[in-house]
């Protein structure tokens, strides 16, 4: 992606929360999944993932647990909490509203 900006941080949170909705994953898997699902369009700067993950954990929207990974090595798995689910809904709604508004303007011109 291009230069990081404030908007990007909020969106990153949204992406992470959405990715964790189906199941719990560790950091690397989240990065890969985002890349995958967006059809290779979004390449998250992997380094910026971890501050975001820890921040979301502090805020109580995701919770972490160390357990055995698919390679039989211990990894930190993150899962969505109930509060996180609610936050995801409201952020998604906000995003939709925002993007619809932007669409209108950009679509006009």
């Amino acid at each position, binding site marked *: 992606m291009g230069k990081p900006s404030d908007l990007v941080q909020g969106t990153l949170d949204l992406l992470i929360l959405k990715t964790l909705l189906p199941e719990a994953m*560790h950091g690397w898997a989240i990065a890969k999944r985002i890349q995958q699902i967006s059809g290779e369009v979004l390449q998250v700067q*992997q*380094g910026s993932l971890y501050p975001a993950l820890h921040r979301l954990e*502090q805020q109580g929207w995701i919770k972490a647990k*160390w357990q055995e990974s698919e390679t039989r090595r*211990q990894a930190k798995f993150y899962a969505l909490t109930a509060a996180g689910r609610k936050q995801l809904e409201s952020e998604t709604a906000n995003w939709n509203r925002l993007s619809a508004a932007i669409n209108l303007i950009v679509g006009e011109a």
Partner: protein
Amino acid sequence: MSFRGLFRRRVDDTRLEDELGFHLDRQIAENIAAGMNPAEAKYAALRTFGNPALVREQTRATWGWSKLESLAQDVRYTARALLRQTGFSATIVGTMALGIGAAAAMFTVVDHVLLRPVSYKDPSRLVVMQEGDPGGRQVWDLSWLDVSEWRHSARSFAQIAMLRHMSGRSYLEGQNAALEVTGMSVSANLFPVLGVEPQLGRGFVPEEPSFAQGKNAGSIVLSYPAWQEGFGGDKGIIGKTLKINTTTYTVVGVMPVGFEYPIGGKHAPEVWTAVSLAESDRKRDYTGMDFTVIARLAKGATVQSAQNEMSILQKRVAADYTDADLRKEHSTVKVQPLVNTLVTADVRRALIALLGASGVLWLIASLNVTNLLLARNMARQRETAMRVALGASRLRVVQQMLVEGFALNGTAALLGIGLAVASVSILARELSRTLPVPIPARPDGWILLALLGMTLLSTLVSTAWPAWLAARAPVEPALKQGGLQAGTTRRQHRVRGVLVAAEIAMSLCLLVVCGLLLRTIYTLRHVPLGFRTDHILVANLSIPAFHYDNQNIVTALYDPLLERVQHLHGVQNAGLMSEVPLGNTFRVQLGLRKNDSSMITGMLKPVSPEVQQIFGFKMAAGRFFDKTDTPTSQQAAIVNRAFAKIYAPNAQDPDSIVGTKFWSFKKNVETRIIGILDDQRQAQVSKDSQPEVEICLCQITPDSGIYNPSTVGMDLAVRTDRPTAEMIPELRDVLRQASPELGTATITTMDQIVEDSYGSQRLAAHLLEIFGGSALVLCMAGLYGLLAYLVSQRTRELGVRIALGARRGNLVWMVLRQAGVMLVAGIALGTGLAFAAGKLVDRFLYGVSAHDAWTLAAAPALLLAVGLLAAYLPARRAASVDPMEALRAE
């Protein structure tokens, strides 16, 4: 979570390493699987990842501090905001300080008197025992024979201790001159029973009281004040000798600070010697009965089980009495917990009532603050909405309001504790007269803890409603509205109105109760006392009788003293009485029996003839003592009307008692009654006179039966025109010359003594005056605040009305009507509350009923007047709105 982060830094660091390492390894593995060689794979992975060290730093930065950060932010913001709006903050802080201060002061008193009055071990297991007659009259003084029987047979007690006062007044000769002390003879197990050990020395050797000289003979234990005042806190005091009156004792122990037993009573420092039984203890008669008993319950025993056992046991003990009257008087035993006896039920009720009143005041203050905060938050709706729109969670908004509330209430609490300490110090004199336990003015740990709890409670109560509203307020309407002029709903106004009405109701309640008590005081003050009180100085003397062992104290001390005092410049007259009326200092009780009816207690007072002129006692018949009464003339006695009514030979004519024979004070010399005194108030203004007998000091010689009581305590009454401040030092000098121990006598005026005798009613009335006055002020402030705010909210509307032709008068009327509604609602509710409260204070009232119409009418009238006054300013402001300004303003 954040605190955990502080302490587990190391562990979390390692874990972070692992996490990032895992990620990199997986990326490298993927790269290798895609065909790169290991070195290439590593570089590629690092490129996509970014600088691991940087990532580590960024991640660490998100740890644990976000919550604390937000808190710190809120604190800074709150401080700025509050300091900017000084008027608003000061009002809130002042209001809450009043409420918290009152509650803290009352709680201090209640805590020390009711909750933790004593510092003994396990005080709930300590009981005291009294004997009594079947009718319920109790006596405290018990004979050794009874006590030893109990110690032998009773199973309900782990240990029984006993004590009695040392006879006469005790004077300790320490390093620093003669010091009056309260001397107690105690059994060796008293301190173990109370569970307190001496801080110096070993105390008494355990042994039973006996008639022979025990191991503890000649030993003495000092209390902390006695040690400090008499010996300057000399650490090497153990083993040293001292004299009490003329007897030498060796010090074997010093008790810790604050230890006192018995509690209450005189405030002379205590000393304890070992009891030694005397011949008079072998019998069961009046001379041998002076023990007080305190016991610790045995394991598994309760007060009730002990009471049951003692009731049965006492039947056997009482059978041993030979005198039928005594047997009846001592036929029952009452066991009760020590803590119940320290404070009379009256005082306990009064304290709890006052605690309730202070709670009400606190509630009023809290309501006021809630109102003010509500108003302020309505004005800040837009700001709050903006914050929410920018992403603050509702919790964050509530957090900020809680921080604000806590800051305000915390400051108020600090001020409040200052107020509480100040008021306890100011009222110390009143308190010490009414309560048996001293109240220290400094707050201690428990009080501070209670204060913290109160602060938190205040914060919650005063910010709960505004916070809830702010948290639920819809964001968009607030953002859309133009300025401050709109956005408050009808419902919010009504809520605030209800709060103010509630305040008014509670204030009315306080005012009514206050009024009732004040009227009681007024009535008490107008009860005719029966004697003059103006221009009389009274010195309360403790007589060092041991100096006069082989002399006649009347001729050796009293007469010369009176002479010298009478010759002082400005003294019109001086006289001696064992106790001035209402003096509550020293009393001799006589047990009198008329034929075979039950005993009556009467007071016996040795007096000098001058007192009649000093106090203006009126004679109902006969004459008072005068110069013709000498040791060799007819022994004379004077009685009062209450006595004459009971004992006159002719029941229809009390005056017939004059000239009749009275109980002989001297062997073989008859005493005649020469006059009847008009009744006076003796112990309390609100109580009627008891029978009283007066004897002339001039006729008392060492072989009189009442010589000894006359040498214990005397009040010196001096009638003088000179100002008190001048007379007192001169008087003290004369006293000191007569005998050094008299130099420290308490000297006060008769007026002050009368004042002091009003007792607990005055204290309660003072406090309620303060509460009532504060409540009134708070109500005024609350009403004014609300109305002023409402008017300022409606300036635009008012401007429009005026522009459309409304008259100023109408606007004033509109505001006043709003105020009126709240006042009337509050007063109606408050009258109901006042009725209920009146029932609670009924027993403190004298001469006025709990539903006194005058008070119930005056208090609402006062509140109405004050309320309308508070509404006046906003009303005037409403009327003086300039329509052009109003319409232009935003």
